[in-house]
């Protein structure tokens, strides 16, 4: 027993001699200091270029109060045309999102690391999706308005492209995160890649797919409101006309309707997510 204790003490001494308690925080390197200093300088320059001005903000307060005063009470004289426009806005968002999601699934399969047939295919599809995502939706709307004319079709096309840019990327990432074990198990018995995608990856990624799709719908509803400002149909066009004609009371009614639509979609999305994903736990 004494021998054992001696051995233990010897080991403990060695450990003490060999290892020191590490510092709580690593000292930042010179490069980190330089980068931080550069960031601070760039931020200060940016505030100047962003036009931040306390005096202009203070002088704008009376105008804000005037406009806010003219917004109350919201006008009810054009409620039905506005309700129709908000319905079209939602329909654009819904159709665009559903078609966008349907197109995103095969694109995601081609661009996910564990499902893509070839690295070149993966890089091409990823680049296309990245391009769809990085071009702002207003730029797409202007492009489609110029291509197919004013109206909701241009807006729907914009939402399709925007949804593909969003969903295809996140669908691919969620398929890459699925546990590879079951896929390996099916590969070991000779199942085809298509079988493995359908049987393992799609069910495995389904909770993420549902989540991403619902967020995508929320996003599409919000952006479809703005698309009308450039002539792509929906309530945005009504809002632009009201603001140009200084009918702030009508604009207030439109903003109220937009709030109700976005709030309703978010509530629906949230309850659907809880119901579908709650069951899967």
């Amino acid at each position, binding site marked *: 027993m004494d021998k054992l204790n001696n051995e233990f003490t010897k080991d403990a001494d060695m450990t003490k001699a060999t290892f020191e308690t590490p510092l709580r925080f690593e000292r930042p390197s010179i490069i980190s200091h330089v980068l931080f200093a550069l960031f601070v300088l760039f931020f200060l320059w940016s505030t100047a270029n962003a036009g931040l001005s306390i005096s202009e903000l203070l002088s704008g307060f009376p105008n804000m109060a005037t406009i806010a005063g003219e917004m109350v009470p919201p006008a009810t004289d054009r409620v039905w045309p506005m309700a129709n426009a908000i319905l079209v806005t939602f329909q654009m968002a819904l159709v665009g999102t559903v078609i966008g999601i349907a197109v995103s699934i095969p694109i995601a399969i081609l661009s996910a690391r564990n499902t893509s047939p070839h690295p070149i295919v993966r890089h091409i599809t990823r680049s296309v999706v990245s391009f769809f995502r990085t071009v702002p939706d207003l730029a797409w709307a202007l492009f489609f308005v110029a291509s197919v004319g004013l109206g909701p079709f241009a807006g729907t096309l914009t939402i399709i492209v925007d949804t593909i840019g969003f969903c295809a990327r996140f669908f691919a990432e969620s398929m890459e995160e699925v546990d590879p*074990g*079951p896929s*390996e*198990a*099916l*590969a*070991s*018995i*000779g*199942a*085809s890649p*298509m*079988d493995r995608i*359908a*049987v*393992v990856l799609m*069910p*495995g990624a*389904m909770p993420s797919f549902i989540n991403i799709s619902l967020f995508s719908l929320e996003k599409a509803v919000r952006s479809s409101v703005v698309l009308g400002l450039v002539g792509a149909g929906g309530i945005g066009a009504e809002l632009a006309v009201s603001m140009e004609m200084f009918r702030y009371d009508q604009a207030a009614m439109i903003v109220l309707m937009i709030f109700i639509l976005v709030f309703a979609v978010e509530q629906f999305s949230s309850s659907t997510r809880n119901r579908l994903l709650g069951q*899967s736990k």
Partner: protein
Amino acid sequence: MSNYADPSSLASASVSAASSLLQVSGLSKSFDNNSTPIFSDVNFSIFASQSVALIGSNGAGKSTLLRCCLRLIEPDSGSIVFDGEAIDKKSGRSLSKVRNKVGFVFQKHCLVPRLSVLSNVIHGNLAYCQGPRNWLHGFARQEVRERAMDCLAQVGLAHLATKRCDQLSGGQSQRVAIARALMQQPTILFADEPTASLDPQSGQEIMELFERLVKDNGLTLFFVSHNIEHALKYADRVLGLQERRLSLDSVTHTQSLQSLRAFYG
């Protein structure tokens, strides 16, 4: 460690490929180019209706060897003959045809958690019939569903057919994985540490199930295990990987707990 090998029972050296179900010759594998191999020049044969255990310490390359036998991991060199067919040059559909005959049970079960037990068992039929008919039990042909229920009955889980796999215990999941392998009607069953994630009682039950399948169905079993008692009790032969070599290939009854423990020393 070569003193543990029983030269009289080194089956692989004396038996031709034609009479063995699986013959592995000169198999080597390393993961980084020019690095020390995980194992090299591995030779062994497995015969029909045999139960063979592969033992070795962590990192010895047991799981890699098992996967190399099916080319789920590509070996660097060596030849693999399965049921009289060399598989080292096969690819695509012809390799799949060989894999169809091999059931594989993994340590972590590898079931699709969100699907039902019955659907998971039916996936075993993808070995022979690919496509949507075998993706979900709702799409499957009646005879396939009935055969899947038979497989579940063999592992004692027919009453859980509609339950989701993520609601099963570890032991039940492993039984479902075995039922999926049985659905393939395999010639040989590979099992990679099938009891490692289970409690001792469940592990014992799984090994007894394997023993029954070998005895009653004439199945050939090749399993990796850290449990020496399981190796001695349930295997006819034991292979041991140590220091990058297959240093033991012996019938089990000539081995003891003490002699096999040396592989973990």
